[in-house]
């Protein structure tokens, strides 16, 4: 399912990149090196609209700052510091850390033992990488062969699937963060543009962390 969802999303990216004038090598290299859909779409559509390289850089930076948080959170889930891997191996492993892999880890942490999670992640990341590259190539070449009404539904599945995964987060703090961040971001977007992601993430994450912390401290106090 994650592979299918990611493949279909990247079909969408392949189509957008071709429309923007990129060739197949540039499009595939983008998926290979960036491996983060929102940043890739920002790059291709901004280029198509005639934006400067500086603006493209800033937009991708803003769209992908979350990668740092996901890498920290994902390393924690995988117990990575305890595995004592060399830096290059950690960097290589974290290249596969994007929304799909990270959300899947959060979902699977309940059913897979912490020590096996790294093996699971390696296999999972490698598989979704293959699906992502395949989707990009298919989208670039076969866009016209997939009927538009099917493509629309296929592309709708990815954000739907990932939102369903993260709303099911184990910790209440993270659930609340999803609700606040997810509601706030589209509301702020008309006012703040790409900065809305940072504002909504900061407000949603901070509020939920403090609310749940405060609530659990109060519960502890009442108990004692």
């Amino acid at each position, binding site marked *: *399912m994650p592979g299918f969802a990611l493949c279909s999303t990247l079909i969408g990216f392949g*189509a*957008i990149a071709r429309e923007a*004038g990129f060739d197949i090598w*540039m499009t595939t*290299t983008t998926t290979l090196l*960036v491996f*983060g859909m929102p940043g890739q779409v920002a*790059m291709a*559509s901004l*280029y*198509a609209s*005639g934006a400067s*390289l500086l603006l493209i850089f800033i937009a991708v*930076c803003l*769209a992908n*700052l*979350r990668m*740092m*948080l996901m*890498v920290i959170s994902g*390393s924690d889930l995988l117990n990575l*510091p305890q595995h004592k891997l060399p830096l290059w191996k*950690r*960097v290589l492993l974290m290249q596969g850390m994007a*929304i799909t892999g990270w959300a899947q880890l959060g979902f699977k942490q309940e059913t897979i033992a912490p020590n096996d999670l790294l093996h699971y992640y390696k296999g999972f990341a490698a598989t979704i990488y293959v699906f992502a590259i395949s989707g990009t190539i298919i989208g670039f070449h076969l866009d016209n062969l997939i009927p*538009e009404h099917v493509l*629309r*539904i296929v*592309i*709708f*599945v*990815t*954000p*739907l699937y990932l*939102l*369903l*995964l993260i709303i*099911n*987060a184990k910790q209440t703090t*993270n659930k*609340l*963060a*999803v609700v606040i*961040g*997810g*509601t706030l*971001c*589209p509301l702020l*977007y008309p006012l703040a543009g790409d900065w*809305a*992601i940072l504002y*909504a*993430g*900061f*407000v*949603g994450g*901070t509020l*939920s962390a403090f609310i749940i*912390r405060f609530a659990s401290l109060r519960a502890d106090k009442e108990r004692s």
Partner: protein
Amino acid sequence: MKPDTALFGISEMWAAVILAFVATFMWRFLGVMLANRIKTDSFLMIWINALAYAMVAGVLMLILVYPSGILATTPLDYRLGALGLGLLCMVTLKILWLSILVGMGSFALAMYLL
């Protein structure tokens, strides 16, 4: 679409691809460097996790509310209605495949029937 011009000897399009890579890789690298320094059960880690969840939810909602490409040709209330049904199913029944089916199915039905 703008014409591909040369910048410092490399095509401007390749420059855009490389810049997008740098703008993403630097965050991942920073994450790898910081990951070893933050304690698992600290409040800082709880906060970072919450920030990541809120930010990812924000990005995904932006894709749904302000889509680019072909999804932009679908009505906003269909997209949000289908998401709402999927979420309701997930929160109440906690069955992932069924929730995806409900969300995707209701979106497809709305597109064809309404």
